[in-house]
């Protein structure tokens, strides 16, 4: 294996394609996911959900359900104390406990079809289902509103009579469905448009899409008579689940121990709580373990999709192709409670570019839909889709190659971003160059085929992280991290630990610890877990190395500057090197008891310096002009990973994000009827890409080291979903001459557009 150097350390494993340590369990069916946990005496919990998109709850009578033999507990809004209005971070978004308590269990009103109204725990599934039918809820059905633009109208049905638009002066006197207005400004956008030779303005619309993880939400809670609470659940952040449950149920944080199961996908959707507080409340009442698992229909109706939105973009450029002004107005659906990802949408809209004059305004709008949750680069794909479409149109108008135009305007080290900071080294130009060098870029195309390119930006985050390394008696190493491993984290951290300590990779055994085993960890989200976790592991390893050097000094009677840790050994330096034999970690492990006790390190950090990751995608597609069907023919992703710890899993992030983006662009959408009910709450009609829908996704790793990380790592998970929407829309334009501005570009829409122009013939 080739050795490279970084962080002053020889690297045997970082940058190689190791076998993941949790892999065998996952290919043999042994790995335990959320629904795979069971406890003796457990009950089955089920949720009663509102059939109405908007209704006042007049009364809930649970007497008949409680009287049914086998029913051990029933809970409603009365089992949760109200919460004060207070915003807290949730992934890369914010949430308010006043809303969280209402989202997990409806209080005054049911605000969307599928909103939880009551829950039961019973001795069997059949009894739980029967019990739900015996709960009598009296509703006063209210007019509902689904569409974001309609929800913003002054006469729209009002979801919350205490919601006054924040961010406008003076504060509005009337409540509305507009929760918030945000704005970022750089330079003078009006002056910028004055300098423009070409101005393109367009309005875009995107549909809400679901994260689509294959594993439904699941939780198993056990509350003992003394209030000690154990919870097993599928989550992106078990420390966050603990905090939310403690708050919602009035429990001390220290009384709750949460164990994260293996997680069957999250993509942001498992950063909030749904079943977890209900399972605890039911178990507390029944004094027996309660297991709850959502059906797929419940996942679609009651867990977070991301926003649908309308976006207006206006960009100006000189005839030489210099972008001189960028304006955008974003209206994002938040679902039933405020907190859409409009803020990051606003911040990312123009982030791939160096533009002097930028103004972006965003609105956070509530409507009678499930509350949105984070979804991979929350907010960014929507606003960047609109901007990338307009960039393509400018390229066409100016007859400039779309890659060259992007290159000319690319954000680079030192660029003042409209969202605030001066950027460090980022890989926008490098990804554009990488794409331009591919054979794909120059491959021939036939009639009805088109090629599109688009770039994408995501910030990435760091945050609070704890991780430990323990040297066992035989010199093997136990690694514990506290952020759920969603796609190869344990492999990456074990590789870093092996390189830091100079031990073989297969001697490091990583696990995800429960909330009682480590200090606080923020969740797996924001592309932070490998970035921050590896920094915490480097810190923990440093402690071990320092400790071993100190022990060596004692054993060898040397001074600290006479020893060093290198290549997995402590060695004496200079003349002393002749006299003492270097000691490996295993050597120290054997004498640990005699030299100071157990050996370990504990990284507790608040990771800073997450560098943005830029990506550029290239897609070829073909349109069937007679049916409007779109086939993706070829796809290439180039993205800056900073430094890829495990190249295969980094490529996997690129490929997976690209295919999610393909789904978003072409077929995925929440479809509502006039009755405000979701019509496609299942994998049959919520059309995620299947294996035969997509080609191989070529992944190009670009590595522009992040100077703030010891190995140069950047988060990579989120950026890949940003460019596909624009790239595909641009390819559609190339294939048909039609600029599609509404997602998804599903066959009926495509055929209609072709027909209107008389193009629906082979």
């Amino acid at each position: 294996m080739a050795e490279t150097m970084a962080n002053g350390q020889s690297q045997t494993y970082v940058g190689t394609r190791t076998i993941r340590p949790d892999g065998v369990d996952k290919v043999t069916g042994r790995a335990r996911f959320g629904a795979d946990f069971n406890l003796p005496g457990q009950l089955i919990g089920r949720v009663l959900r509102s059939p109405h998109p908007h209704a006042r709850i007049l009364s809930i009578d649970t007497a008949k359900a409680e009287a049914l033999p086998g029913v051990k507990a029933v809970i409603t809004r009365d089992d949760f104390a109200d919460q004060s209005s207070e915003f807290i971070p949730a992934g890369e978004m914010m949430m308010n406990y006043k809303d969280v308590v209402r989202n997990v269990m409806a209080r005054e009103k049911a605000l969307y079809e599928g909103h939880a109204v009551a829950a039961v725990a019973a001795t069997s599934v059949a009894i739980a289902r029967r019990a739900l039918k015996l709960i009598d809820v009296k509703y006063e059905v209210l007019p509902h509103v689904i569409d974001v633009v309609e929800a913003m109208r002054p006469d729209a049905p009002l979801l919350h009579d205490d919601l006054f638009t924040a961010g406008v002066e003076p504060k509005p006197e009337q409540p509305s469905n507009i929760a918030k207005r945000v704005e970022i400004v750089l330079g003078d956008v009006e002056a910028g448009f004055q300098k423009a030779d070409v101005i393109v303005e367009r309005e875009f619309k995107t549909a809400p899409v679901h994260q689509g993880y294959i594993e439904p939400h699941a939780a198993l809670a056990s509350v003992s008579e003394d209030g000690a609470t154990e919870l097993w659940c599928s989550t992106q952040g078990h420390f966050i689940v603990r905090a939310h449950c403690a708050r919602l149920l009035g429990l001390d944080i220290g009384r709750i121990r949460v164990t994260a199961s293996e997680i069957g996908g999250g993509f942001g959707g498992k950063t909030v709580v749904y079943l977890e507080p209900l399972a605890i409340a039911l178990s507390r009442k029944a004094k027996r373990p309660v297991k709850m698992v959502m059906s797929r229909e419940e996942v679609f109706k009651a867990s977070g999709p991301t926003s649908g939105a309308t976006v207006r973009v206006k960009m100006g450029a000189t005839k030489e192709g210099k972008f001189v002004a960028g304006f955008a107005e974003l209206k994002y659906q938040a679902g039933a409670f405020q907190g859409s990802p409009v803020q990051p949408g606003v911040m990312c809209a123009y982030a791939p570019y160096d533009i002097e004059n930028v103004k972006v305004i965003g609105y956070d709008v509530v409507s009678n839909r499930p509350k949105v949750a984070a979804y991979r680069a929350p907010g960014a794909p929507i606003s960047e889709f609109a901007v990338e479409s307009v960039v393509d149109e400018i390229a066409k108008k100016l007859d400039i190659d779309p890659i060259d135009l992007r290159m000319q305007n690319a954000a680079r080290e030192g660029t003042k971003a409209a969202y605030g900071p001066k950027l460090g080294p980022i890989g926008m130009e490098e990804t554009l160059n990488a794409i331009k060098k591919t054979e794909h870029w120059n491959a021939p195309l036939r009639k009805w085929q088109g090629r599109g390119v688009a770039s994408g930006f995501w910030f990435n985050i760091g945050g609070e992280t704890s991780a430990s390394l323990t040297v066992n008696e035989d010199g093997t190493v136990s690694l514990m991290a506290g952020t759920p491993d969603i796609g190869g984290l344990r492999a990456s951290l074990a590789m870093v630990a092996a390189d830091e300590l100079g031990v073989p990779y297969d001697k490091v055994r990583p696990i995800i610890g429960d909330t009682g085993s480590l200090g606080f960890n923020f969740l797996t989200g924001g592309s932070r877990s490998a970035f921050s976790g590896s920094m915490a592991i480097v810190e923990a390893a440093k402690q071990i190395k320092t400790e071993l050097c100190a022990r060596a000094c004692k054993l060898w009677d040397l001074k600290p500057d006479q020893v060093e840790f290198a290549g997995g050994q402590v060695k004496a330096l200079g003349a002393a090197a002749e006299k003492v034999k270097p000691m490996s970690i295993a050597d120290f492990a054997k004498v640990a008891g005699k030299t100071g006790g157990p050996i370990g390190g504990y990284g507790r950090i608040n990771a800073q310096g997450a560098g943005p990751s830029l990506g550029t995608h290239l897609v070829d597609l073909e349109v069937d002009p007679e049916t409007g069907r779109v086939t993706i023919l070829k796809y290439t992703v180039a993205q800056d990973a900073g430094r890829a710890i495990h190249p295969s899993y980094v490529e996997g992030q690129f490929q997976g994000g690209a295919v999610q983006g393909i789904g978003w662009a072409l077929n995925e959408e929440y479809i509502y009827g006039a009755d405000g009910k979701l019509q496609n709450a299942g994998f049959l009609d919520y059309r995620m890409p299947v294996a035969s829908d997509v080609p191989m996704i070529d992944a190009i790793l670009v590595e522009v080291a992040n100077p703030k990380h010891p190995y140069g790592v950047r988060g990579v998970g989120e950026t890949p979903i940003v460019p596909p929407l624009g790239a595909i829309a641009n390819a559609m334009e190339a294939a048909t001459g039609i600029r599609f501005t509404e997602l998804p570009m599903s066959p009926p829409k495509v055929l209609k557009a072709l027909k209107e122009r008389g193009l629906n013939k082979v």
Partner: protein
Amino acid sequence: MRYEAPESLEGAVALLAGATGEARVLAGGTDLLVQMRADIVDPELIVDIKKIAETRAVTEEQGGWRIGAAVTGAELKEHARLKQAWPGVVEAANLIGSTQVQGRATLGGNLCNGSPAADSVPALIAAGAVATLAGPQGKRDLPVEDVMLGPRKLALRKGEILVSFLLPPRPPRSSDAYLRFIPRTEMDIAVVGAGVSVTIDGAGTITAARVSLGAVAARVLLVPEAARAIVGSRLDAAAQQRLETAARAACQPIDDKRGTTEFRIDVAGVLTRRAALIALDRARAN
């Protein structure tokens, strides 16, 4: 909920005829189990017909083919001679769901589920298939186009079950094809389905044709006007145009989550033409 798996037709008929509550026939279960899970049906009795020999066999009969109602898509796919004779019927059956669903889903179930979007039904109708039913009064035959009356409504009487289909003998220079439109490449329900069967003479002129359309009306349609539009032609451009027009004229679709009325009508014409061209190519090769 009772489960019975009789080994004779008489036994199955007696169980169904004697049922007091809702009774359902279980063949592949790929629709029934989903509907049970979604609380759409809650039968008192389930009669599994897979142990009845007549429902599980594919046999040659009077020069044609008899296919048991409980034969799965995967089994049809492996039947080389049937595929040679009726490629459109087999390819339609093979479009129902995934590989996994193919391991279970049956022709009988696809028809008796009563969906106008069932993939195999337009192909069976185009093929001129006849359904054999067994009931308390004995057996009777019904053209497939007369079995389904509307969404979830069948011509089956109480106690009656669908036993098998009879595909007629395949004349020389004759073949069939089925195409459907779905947004993805797999796993969707047909937005439009078109089955076409044609016979040509030695000069390549179409002497007989049957055209059937799915998912464009409350039931799967047999469209004789579309067949008339191409009989006597060699499917030249003008005949193709007539075929498209006739197919579109027969459509009475709805707007729903899977497609708009306009889209379905437009695509019905396109698919009918494309399926006819494939059937014609196959007929020439026979």
